[in-house]
């Protein structure tokens, strides 16, 4: 039997549900009807698929503007969170500074990040949904899905749910599979630097811990640069839990990028 006949037989014997056939046929019919409508409009000029091209480009531009605006908002929130930690440095005890800096910084960072960005993000998504609807009325469902996705975001928890997590806060965890091309690209370039910082930090911390006494005071902490340890901890918390595009659990920025990428890709696919 010829290969082609084999293929025919395989298709004939396969149990294909009717709904697949109907859906596929329906889609083709809808596409054919759309083309027919476009081609039969009796006005000057030739109608092309320029509309679709422009729609794809508009969807990409929408995705770009939203992602860049998200980065700005989250970065601003991070700056405010760091400022908050800086103001509270005097409250830090020597024990937590030396052995558990994350205990001091985590709640402060997470609380500040939440209050600084959530309203802004909500407003941004509302505007973005409106802009998406303006590109094409067919994107209404996608715009609604974008807004609904806000409720599904998992914010970094204020309290550590795993006691070991505090200890590993400053270390770099292996990143899971990236959530998209953009996230993967950012993670690839950022990883090099994070690993380098962690190594530098590790050797510095060992020296400092050895030199610190049990009666260490705020002056000592500040004088020996131990406050930098808290600053570094806050920085790490912001970068790994909030601003990293990848990680486990997925940081907020990673989740946001994934949502916007999905909606943007879907919008572009609908204009093919």
């Amino acid at each position, binding site marked *: 039997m010829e290969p082609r006949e084999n293929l025919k037989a395989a298709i004939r014997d396969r149990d294909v549900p009717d709904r697949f056939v109907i859906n596929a046929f329906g889609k083709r019919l809808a596409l054919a009807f759309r083309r027919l409508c476009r081609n039969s409009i009796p006005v000057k000029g030739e109608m092309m698929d320029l509309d679709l091209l422009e729609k794809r*480009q508009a969807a990409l531009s929408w995705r770009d503007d939203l992602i860049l605006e998200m980065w700005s908002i989250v970065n601003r929130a991070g700056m405010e969170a760091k400022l908050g930690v800086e103001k509270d440095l005097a409250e830090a005890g020597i024990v937590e500074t030396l052995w558990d800096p994350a205990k001091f910084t985590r709640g402060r960072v997470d609380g500040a990040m939440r209050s600084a960005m959530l309203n802004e993000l909500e407003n941004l998504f509302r505007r973005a949904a409106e802009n998406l609807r303006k590109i094409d009325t067919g994107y209404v469902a996608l715009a609604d899905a974008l807004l609904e996705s806000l409720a599904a975001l998992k914010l970094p928890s204020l309290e550590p749910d795993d006691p070991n997590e505090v200890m590993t806060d400053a270390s770099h965890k292996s990143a899971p599979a990236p959530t998209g091309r953009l996230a993967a690209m950012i993670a*690839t370039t950022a990883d090099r630097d994070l690993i380098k910082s962690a190594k530098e930090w590790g050797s510095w911390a060992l020296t400092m811990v050895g030199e610190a006494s049990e009666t260490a005071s705020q002056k000592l902490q500040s004088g020996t640069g131990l406050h930098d340890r808290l600053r570094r901890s806050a920085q790490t918390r912001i*970068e790994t839990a909030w601003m990293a595009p990848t990680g486990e659990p997925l940081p907020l920025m990673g989740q946001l990028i994934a949502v916007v990428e999905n909606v943007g890709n879907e919008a572009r696919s609908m204009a093919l």
Partner: protein
Amino acid sequence: MTNLGGMFTASFDAAAGIKAGNLRIVGSVVRYAAGPLKGKIHSYLQETGAAGALLDSVSGSGKAFVRTTVATGNPMTGAVVAGTQLASSLGGNVQNEIIRRGVNRVESKVDALASGMQTLENLGIANLALGATGIGVSLVGFGIMNARLSRVENTLATLAESTDRILAAVERIRQDQLANEFSALRSQVKLFEEAWLMSNQARATQVWLDVAQATRPHQDRFEGRARELLFAMPPEIELADPIIDALSLAGGLRVACLMACNESHAARSAASENARQIEGLTGAVGKADLVMARIPPSIDRASQEWADALAAAIDEAAPIAERWRQREAVAATRAAPLTQLELDGIAPHEWLKAARAEQNEPILLLKAT
């Protein structure tokens, strides 16, 4: 309306509408932006032989043009910098010109260049026209194609000088083989050009068909190289860009060859395929990707320094993203006039010939009816 030889109208027919916002340019097509005809095609843009003079004048100061264009992502900025050098070069040659040809001739040459540039600026397409992709059927003469090929090669050479990382990437895609690709493409352009001089139309047609066929593997290899660079992690966006320009040039050459043979269907198919290749490479790469690739990873996030780096990267990436969208649109609309030409009863060969012969206006219009 200014009718030029029954095939074209002058571009100022569209310039006023574009300025007023009633018309807008998408690739090589002018569309109605408002009113009852919104979205419909007003006319098709086509570069002419006069565009070659503009490109040559800029290429005279080529290195400055390329360096500035690479740095800013904006060919128009490159042209301004190169133009300064061009002006001094013209100034230096004025005395000789006066002696050889007389004052009037020199002035008219400079005036023609300035007028051509003004036309492009009025239409808002100077960047597009001076870029590698061009406008309409992007090839109307060896001078234009050669200038564009040289620019792409110079851009690659300039990039290879910039960092070790980029040099490594250039070596990875075999710089020597890339040079051979450019050389082969240039030979095909020469053959294309020579065929226009043949007295026997049948022989010329055969040459054009052969060129279209021979260019195909180059086009595919450019696509493969660009894909390799663009989809690497991290992607080599800057390096992929001129190779996509080369892909666009190769595609443009094939379309021009097939149009010269009056093979409208084949030309349409070649244009469509090239457009798909280009959009397949850059269609999903947006400003955000270009921006994030430009922010140094050594800068701590959640800092003013990072915010400043983000703002600077947006400024740098915006014109590049804009140019990429234009390149996709130009590729998608390259064969758009063919249907209109059929309606008008004009053979593509004759139309291309007329565009090549035009020496005053760099851009002409084919009105949609």
